[in-house]
């Protein structure tokens, strides 16, 4: 029982990661791939934030009368990672738009047939 209480959060987060990962590698449509990538990354962020939680703690902004704060470091790391995520998304999506212009399709199997793949 204690195993479940200790780890339920991590397990669900792992499930979410894998759902996102599956979308990335299996989707045929490039936009959907990018969405999957975002879900994958957001779930990894949740893994980090879960580590930083202290039961009974509160947000790491100092106020009087509170001594137990959650760990601020994962928050800092994930702030950076979120920005990295949106940057990748933006570049990925603009590549998708250019691919649509160049090939007339954003389905992976269709433009692979057009060019001889290496």
């Amino acid at each position, binding site marked *: 029982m204690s195993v479940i209480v*200790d*780890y*339920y959060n991590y397990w*669900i987060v*792992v*499930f*979410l990661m*894998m*759902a*996102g*990962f599956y*979308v990335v*590698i*299996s*989707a*045929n*449509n490039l*936009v*959907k791939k*990018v*969405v999957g990538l*975002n*879900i994958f990354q*957001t*779930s990894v962020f*949740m893994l980090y934030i879960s580590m*930083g*939680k*202290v*039961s009974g*703690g509160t*947000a790491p*902004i*100092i*106020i009087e009368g509170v001594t137990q*704060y*959650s760990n*601020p*470091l*994962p*928050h800092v790391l*994930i*702030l*950076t990672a*979120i*920005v990295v*995520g*949106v*940057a*990748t*998304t*933006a*570049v990925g*999506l*603009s590549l998708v*738009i*250019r691919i*649509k212009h160049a090939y007339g399709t*954003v389905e992976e199997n*269709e433009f692979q047939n057009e060019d001889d793949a290496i």
Partner: protein
Amino acid sequence: MTEVLIDLVLLGMLAMTALRVIFLKDLFAVVMLFSIFSFVSALIFINLDAVDVAFTEAAVGAGISTVLMLGTIALTGRTEKKNSHSSILHLVVVCVTGAALIYGTMDMPPFGNADNPIHQHVAPRYIEDSPKEVGLPNIVTSVLASYRGFDTLGETVVVFAAMIGVLSLLGTARPTNKRATPESGLAKHRVLHVVAKIIIPFIILFALYVQFHGDYGPGGGFQAGVIAAAALILYALVFGASFAHRIVSPRQLEVFAPLGVLLYASVGLVGMIKGANFLDYNVLASTAAAGQHYGIIIIELGVGLTVFAAMLGLFYAFSNQVERSNVQ
């Protein structure tokens, strides 16, 4: 106990949403669900005490990313065609990866336990000493801007790099597009026009509040930049991009974004000239506390400027593509 209950319900919602995304073929629905996914994960972040992260995730994940995705599917079409190749191999890869992670969890420190190593080694100094060493109540801002300021410089550069990538791919939007008329906005929605006019000044005011209140509450340069960009994005959506270009032109954005990076870096260089290490704020003023304070204010400004310019620049580039395809 309530925390745990809320956590479970929200995680359940996320799981449902993620599962649905796998099977939906309508990309429009997929993007809508992604925005819900982002919102709910931000709620989880709040519930796990990461208010700054929630702030950013809501503004970036649910805001900017969703808008960009919507713009993309407006150009590329809304439905995914049937998946032709078998996905058993993919499923196996995912299962193996997931199994590895589950195997890894079996030995993790328990969730939420205050005795975990992560709460023992580096973090206590941040919590106990940062109010004295840096002088801000918001520990996240202290760590972000001072202890790990180099990461944040990197983060700013990442945003700048994304802008470079998007502009080189999609071309820079030029305001001389004569065919863009007020018609290109949501011209028929008069109610939207009125409401947008009322609300946009508040958004900009709020962005300024977030910029300067980040030392005391959730927020900071990054979030403020995104919110300010969101105000102009709203303006561009409702009235048409050519009107937004008159307020802040794409060319100005191409100067603002690199300037923000340079502003950030120059704070570090001043520290170097004064004989300390790069990004050491202590030497910026006569006392260490004042130096930290000035340093953080300036770098937050740099971050805000770059993020504002980059986010708005990204949106301009995307919406320029959409408008061009509508004209044709």
